[in-house]
């Protein structure tokens, strides 16, 4: 019947190849999808349902497919949950069915079906409580889920494309294309997104004539015209979301996650022409393999030449059934009966009546006010039970192998709904359509609830012209194309066949989540009758189709159970993405190393050449120490620190923030931004400077240099560089708007090399140019001067973070490496962050460990700076009562009580009497080579004085250590080493 080689279809090419499904080889044609090829090979059983593990076959011919979800690839490298109707096959592809064990035909867990009424919606809320949920969870989790994720993911990176256009049209069916043509002819730049690999939508199989030619020929000419006029056609691309004037579309070529593209589009006008999804009908065992949507049968026939049935029953509530039946019969399908839920009088269109007469004459029974009560069969459909829609009277059994059902269509209206707008219910088609929309969004065609081709063309022409005008193109109205396609539906709503209550649990509404009429009834009975509650309770619409297939069906059944009209019940809100999007596509280009930019200082290569082992500080890479990675870090860092204290060393401080503030009001500005005033600073001098946050907490510290009466350079910590710049600029705008202050970020303009140690001056002076030496030699502590090194200008600041005689050298980035080389040549060894931390803890200097954003200046012993009377940022909130309580912390030093025990930053501190209530914690710690023991800084309640012995408790790492409160400055308390 469906020979691989002789099949003829719109999408088929000439070649044939083999593929693998569940371990068996099958033949396919170029252009086949997994569904079409399997159907052609007589394979109907393609999956098992998620909860009850019922046998399932393919229901649809589109991406809303709920049942036939396959895993492509082997377990190491695979893609799960691929919709079989969308997956375009390639040679050698390995396909596996999902959610079954050990095999699709024989699945052990299908015994769950016997659970029938017990495993209804939400049953797990009513049990699994003893002894605890966790006891049952592992098994339940293994039964849940569809496919399995791979062990690794080898998908290529997604492409990202941003573009704008005049008119974006979602959907390349007749509606979308007519609008596209109208808009392009008016001169608008048009882009069409079509989710299939080719244009056309329903007219692929409808017997349509447009503008005097057959629909397919019309399509071809139109595509040529659109291309020649510069319209852009994106295939296999679905609009998935977006708002705020942006529309997001996602392309998944071949229906398989792979070389995906994510489009971020800014159209001036967005036309929604994405059609309507055919709806299933509800009857007992309507999920058997062999029950399919009516249009699916047509699509498999026309696109892939697959005749999906030998004997079929058609079950519908509208006129199109007769047109479809005529076509399917002509293609060789044997149609046993057409079961129409409407009365015969519902058909008023003469054309339909004629079709019907023809069908009856050819021996096909047309039954009215009848419904399919149940499908019979085990592995697949073997017969249909047909009876009156009232549920009474005689029930016939019609033998068939397929039931093709159609309950009408649900317009695809979600795209753009994120932007707002309302919906209204249209009783004639028993569906919701967009009502009020923003001006720049229009809905047309089946998406707008218009199903008749001539009406569609009429509307689409007008919409296309209106869109072009809105996008700024002048155009005058043109008569719409004349078209005739399938007859108007004349639909009468019908949702479910009558059934005894016991059978309702086999009437499926949402196929992917095994939601049945019984579940909806339970939901209503248990008080979950609002649609959003019912959805959450039953999982209706939670599947990969987001309710496009069964959302309205479920809502209508709930409405019937509640005895209320459907538009009162409404449907649940659809959320973007409207079609599933791979995480890889969302991650876009920001994967791997590109997740975040990596910031490197001008000395990065130099560090590596010196053997620097680099580590992250935020986005920066900085040298932790120099030596081999994995070597004894503690020992190496101790040696580096010792070298600084005995001879000298150099370190890279380029990551510190540097901001220049200039202008006649610069000093006044800085007086306001800092707790430490700037106006009293003399030119050529620097001072330690502290910023408070608006709430009085210490925000950051650094140095303030006065370059001139109207010019300052401020340094900030590495971690707060961006924040401090923004903070300055904020207050510049907010409170100094009329002042003359200019702020420049010079962080990246200057590399900073610190040269520190007893011999640092001796090392520095000779490498400077001659005239620079005397002023640098004469520098006092905290002074700075300009100097020259090898033709480049340097700022030499005598300041120290190590407590040794030291200078900070601000040099142009290009000179940094040679300056560093020169200093190394003069005997200064490089030291990294670990050593730097040891040195600064020895001296009681602060970093973000102490400046945690939770400490006040009082906590940190900075009262000395608070003698000013004027206001500055944070001053207003400094005297709140809590800041002066005895329990408030104070910065102290800590040492081991026994003179050698270890302790670490992050240990909590407790008094000896109350071991479970912390009175502080250790903020920083180091094993000090200078002192030969562990030293630390801590924040401890004020009530605890110097010399007190308390316990450092670190259950996570070292356990308990007795420590004693010590002075903050552990080494060289007088500070005379750096003042030499």
């Amino acid at each position, binding site marked *: 019947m469906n020979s691989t080689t002789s099949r003829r279809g719109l999408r088929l090419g000439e070649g044939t190849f083999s593929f693998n499904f569940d371990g068996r080889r099958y033949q396919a044609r170029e252009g086949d999808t997994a569904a079409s090829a399997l159907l052609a090979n007589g394979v109907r059983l393609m999956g098992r349902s998620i909860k009850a593990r019922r046998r399932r076959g393919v229901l649809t011919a589109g991406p809303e497919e709920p049942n036939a979800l396959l895993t492509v690839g082997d377990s190491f490298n695979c893609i799960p949950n691929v919709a079989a109707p969308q997956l375009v096959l390639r040679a050698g592809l390995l396909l596996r069915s999902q959610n079954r064990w050990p095999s699709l035909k024989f699945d052990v867990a299908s015994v769950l079906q016997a659970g029938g009424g017990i495993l209804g919606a939400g049953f797990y809320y009513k049990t699994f409580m003893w002894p605890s949920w966790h006891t049952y969870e592992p098994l339940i989790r293994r039964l849940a889920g569809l496919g399995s994720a791979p062990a690794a993911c080898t998908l290529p990176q997604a492409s990202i494309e941003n573009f704008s256009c005049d008119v974006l049209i979602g959907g390349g069916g007749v509606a979308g294309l007519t609008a596209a043509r109208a808009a392009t002819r008016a001169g608008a730049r048009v882009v069409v997104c079509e989710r299939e690999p080719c244009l056309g939508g329903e007219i692929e199989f409808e017997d349509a004539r447009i503008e005097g030619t057959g629909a397919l020929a019309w399509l071809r000419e139109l595509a040529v015209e659109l291309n020649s006029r510069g319209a852009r056609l994106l295939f296999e691309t679905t609009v998935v979301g*977006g*708002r*705020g*004037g*942006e529309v997001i579309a996602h392309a998944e070529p071949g229906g398989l996650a792979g070389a995906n593209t994510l489009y971020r589009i800014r159209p001036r006008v967005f036309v929604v022409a994405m059609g309507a999804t055919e709806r299933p009908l509800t009857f007992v065992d309507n999920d058997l393999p062999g029950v399919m949507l009516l249009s699916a049968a047509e699509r498999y026939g026309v696109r892939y030449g697959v005749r999906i049935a030998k004997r079929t029953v058609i079950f519908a509530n509208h006129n199109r059934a007769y047109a479809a039946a005529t076509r399917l019969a002509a293609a060789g399908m044997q149609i046993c009966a057409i079961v129409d839920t409407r009365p015969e009088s519902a058909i008023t269109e003469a054309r339909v009546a004629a079709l019907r007469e023809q069908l009856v004459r050819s021996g096909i029974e047309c039954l009215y006010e009848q419904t399919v009560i149940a499908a019979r069969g085990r592995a697949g459909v073997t017969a249909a039970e047909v009876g009156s829609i009232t549920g009474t009277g005689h029930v016939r059994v019609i033998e068939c192998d397929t039931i093709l059902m159609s309950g009408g269509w649900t317009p695809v209206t979600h795209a753009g709904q994120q932007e*707002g707008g309302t919906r209204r219910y249209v009783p004639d088609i028993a569906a919701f359509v967009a009502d009020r929309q923003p001006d720049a969004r229009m809905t047309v065609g089946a998406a707008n609830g218009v199903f008749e081709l001539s009406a569609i063309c009429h509307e689409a022409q007008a919409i296309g012209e209106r869109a072009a005008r809105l996008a700024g193109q002048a155009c005058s109205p043109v008569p719409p194309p004349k078209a005739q396609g399938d007859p108007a539906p004349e639909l009468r709503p019908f949702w479910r066949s009558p059934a005894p209550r016991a059978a309702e649990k086999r009437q499926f509404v949402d196929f992917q989540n095994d939601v049945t009429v019984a579940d909806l009834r339970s939901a209503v009975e248990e008080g979950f009758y609002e649609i959003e509650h019912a959805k959450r309770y039953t999982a209706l619409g939670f599947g990969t189709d987001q309710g496009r297939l069964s959302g309205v069906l479920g809502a209508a059944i709930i409405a019937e159970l509640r005895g209320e009209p459907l538009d009162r019940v409404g449907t649940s809100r659809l959320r973007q993405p409207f079609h599933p999007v791979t995480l890889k596509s969302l991650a876009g280009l920001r994967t791997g190393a590109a997740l975040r930019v990596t910031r490197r200082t001008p000395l990065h290569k130099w560090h590596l050449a010196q053997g620097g082992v680099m580590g992250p500080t935020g986005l920066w890479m900085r040298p932790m120490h120099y030596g081999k990675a994995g070597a004894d870090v503690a020992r190496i860092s101790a040696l580096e620190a010792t070298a600084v204290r005995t001879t000298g060393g150099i370190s890279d401080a380029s990551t510190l923030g540097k901001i220049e503030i200039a202008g006649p009001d610069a000093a006044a500005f800085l007086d306001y931004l800092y707790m430490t005033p700037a106006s009293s600073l003399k030119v050529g001098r620097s001072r330690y400077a502290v910023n408070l946050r*608006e*709430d009085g907490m210490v925000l950051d510290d650094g140095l303030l240099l006065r370059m001139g009466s109207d010019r300052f350079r401020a340094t900030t910590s590495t971690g707060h560089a961006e924040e401090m710049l*923004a903070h300055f*600029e*904020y207050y*510049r*705008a*907010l*409170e*100094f*708007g009329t002042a003359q202050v200019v702020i420049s970020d010079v962080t990246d303009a200057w590399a900073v090399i610190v040269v520190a140690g007893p011999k640092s001056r001796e090392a520095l002076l000779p490498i400077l140019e001659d005239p620079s030496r005397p002023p640098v030699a004469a520098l006092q502590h905290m002074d700075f001067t300009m100097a020259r090194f090898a033709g480049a200008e340097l700022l030499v600041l005598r300041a120290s973070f190590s407590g040794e005689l030291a200078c900070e050298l601000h040099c142009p980035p290009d000179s940094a490496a040679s300056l560093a080389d020169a200093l190394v040549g003069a005997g200064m060894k490089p030291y990294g962050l670990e050593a730097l931390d040891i040195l600064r803890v020895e001296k009681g200097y602060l970093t973000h460990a102490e400046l945690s954003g939770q400490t006040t200046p009082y906590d940190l012993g900075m009262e000395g700076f608070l003698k000013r009377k004027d206001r500055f940022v944070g001053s*207003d*909130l400094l005297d*709140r009562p809590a800041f002066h309580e005895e329990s408030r912390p104070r910065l102290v030093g800590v040492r081991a009580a026994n003179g050698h025990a270890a302790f670490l930053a992050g240990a909590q501190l407790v008094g000896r009497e109350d071991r479970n209530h912390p009175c502080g914690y250790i903020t920083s710690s180091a094993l000090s080579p200078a002192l030969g023991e562990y030293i630390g800084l801590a924040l401890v309640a004020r009530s605890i004085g110097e010399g007190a012995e308390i316990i450092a408790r670190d259950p996570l790492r070292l356990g308990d250590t007795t420590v004693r409160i010590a002075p903050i400055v552990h080494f060289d308390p007088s500070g005379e080493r750096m003042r030499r």
Partner: protein
Amino acid sequence: MTQLVCPFCGPRELHEFEFRKTAASAGGTPVERVYLRVDHPDLSIEHWHHVRGCRAWLVIERNPSTDAICRVRLLGGDAE
């Protein structure tokens, strides 16, 4: 909301900007000015920074229930 209109740069993508805080109500004690916020479902007066652009500070009046932008001006431009 995917774009903001900077008075200097014109319409720019949202990710060029960063929100800092909503405005405090006028008057009040210093503590109130730091901690209290004016938060209406219909009107939000906000301080934004064009951090990845011209670095201007802006006052943006928006409707946070619709994301519609009512007014954009420079911070400190008018009397605060």
